[in-house]
């Protein structure tokens, strides 16, 4: 489904991505772990064409997206949903308008159908009846869930999640994890989650990949990750300041 090869990206003076290889299968849930600032968000932004790599290739369903024109990228993007780290809700719009924006912009649906769909997606994330609220008046967990409702409004085949649970209390984090897993299992959505939250990673992943120093240094199932002898991964999993990862 998604095939990343040799992706490199330099930002400022920092080589953020330095040859990333990663495969994500159809309907699979892959969690990309890594320390803050290793370039997890940068990686996701490449997958959806918000950033262009210096080198490397990204294929979506066999189609190379590196070097595509914005217009052609848009066709690819319509199959994607993305939940941003800070939810990135449009704060000049109401919650309902946020969730319905892509529907109104891209599909010729009548207003009643849009409203029905918006209400349905908000119900899926457990937030019925908040359509008329402004994002500014929502709590962190609610913002994330509205962001999620917006990401799934267009029935995407792939959803990218940038730190969906970071900064939430453990109970709200579990609610979000359940939603993500539910969408993947129920609708067969290909899922890419970027996080440094291990609890989430274990709950969400079919496969875990570890990003370190601009490369994917490890991939494995949850069990393989738990019991790996790889010193980098062990240090991360055990949350230790001692080891090969320099602090």
């Amino acid at each position: 489904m998604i095939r990343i090869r040799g992706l490199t990206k330099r930002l400022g003076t920092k080589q953020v991505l330095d040859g990333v290889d990663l495969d994500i299968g159809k309907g699979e849930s892959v969690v990309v772990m890594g320390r803050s600032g290793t370039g997890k968000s940068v990686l996701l932004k490449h997958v959806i064409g918000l950033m262009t790599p210096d080198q490397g290739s990204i294929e979506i369903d066999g189609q190379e997206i590196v070097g595509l024109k914005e217009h052609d990228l848009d066709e690819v993007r319509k199959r994607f949903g993305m939940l941003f780290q800070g939810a990135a809700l449009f704060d000049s719009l109401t919650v309902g308008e946020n969730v319905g924006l892509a529907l109104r912009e891209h599909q010729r649906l009548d207003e009643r159908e849009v409203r029905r769909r918006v209400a349905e997606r908000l119900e899926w994330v457990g937030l019925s009846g908040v359509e008329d609220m402004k994002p500014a008046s929502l709590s962190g967990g609610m913002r994330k869930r509205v962001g999620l409702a917006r990401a799934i409004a267009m029935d995407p085949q792939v959803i990218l999640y940038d730190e969906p649970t970071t900064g939430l209390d453990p109970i709200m984090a579990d609610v979000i994890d359940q939603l993500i897993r539910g969408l993947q299992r129920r609708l067969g959505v290909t899922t890419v989650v970027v996080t440094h939250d291990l609890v989430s990673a274990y709950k969400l992943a079919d496969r875990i990949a570890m990003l370190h120093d601009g490369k994917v240094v490890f991939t494995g199932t949850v069990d393989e990750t738990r019991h790996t002898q790889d010193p980098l991964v062990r240090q991360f999993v055990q949350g230790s300041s001692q080891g090969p990862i320099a602090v």
Partner: protein
Amino acid sequence: MQEDLALRGARYLRRRAFDWIAEVGRVTLLIGELFRFLAPGLRSFGLVIQQMGSIGVGSLWLVVVVSLFTGAVAAVQAAYQFSTVVPLKFLGAVILRSVIIELGPVLTGLVVGGRVGASIAAELGTMKVTEQIDALRAMAIHPVRYLVVPRVVASIVMLPIMVVFANAIAIFGGFVVAVTSIGVSAHTYVIGLKQFFYLKDLYSGLLKAFFFGGIIGTMGCHYGFATEGGAEGVGLATTRAVVASCVLILISDYVLAHMLFRFIFAS
């Protein structure tokens, strides 16, 4: 040591020059995209109307106050300079022409440039640093179509409207001062207005306003999009948008005046 300093100075200037050229390049690209997305952008006409409303509402009182006092000052100054040389029956004419050719468009441009340019830059800058611009693109909604076109078009439409309005207020302000403290009769003032009203003066003022509107909207959007690095970056973007708008308004005012009155209306 001294050589070193000279070298550093030269290097600094060269870097600034390159930065500046890059900046001009980015603005040019933005204007190119603006034209490319003009037609699709205008299809969401509601967004344009909404922007026109917020520009009008946001700047109306400011424009009223500024124009009123501009007219009043113009009256006082003109009366002082006329003293015994020029008869006061020309007072209305002088105020009229200086307001509609120059003062109305330029002062409205500067005031709205400060107010609207800053608010556009702040809004888009905040959207940039909170990833809302990325979110739009990820939803396959082009930011130039959805954000830039409505704002620039609204500025271009609203500025001439506000200039007409500002002209009227300024002429009224001049009238009040002329009648109450200079001793020109209302009749004389109005005769002066009528005698020296030329449509081409009005047109040239409105043409300026049209360009000023474009400058304000484009600079606001450009610096908004160029924002980096949190709240501090947003503050910087607003300042830059306002400074660039004001400088470009004054420069283009000169260029337009030169073209209009030396070539087009010269005969």
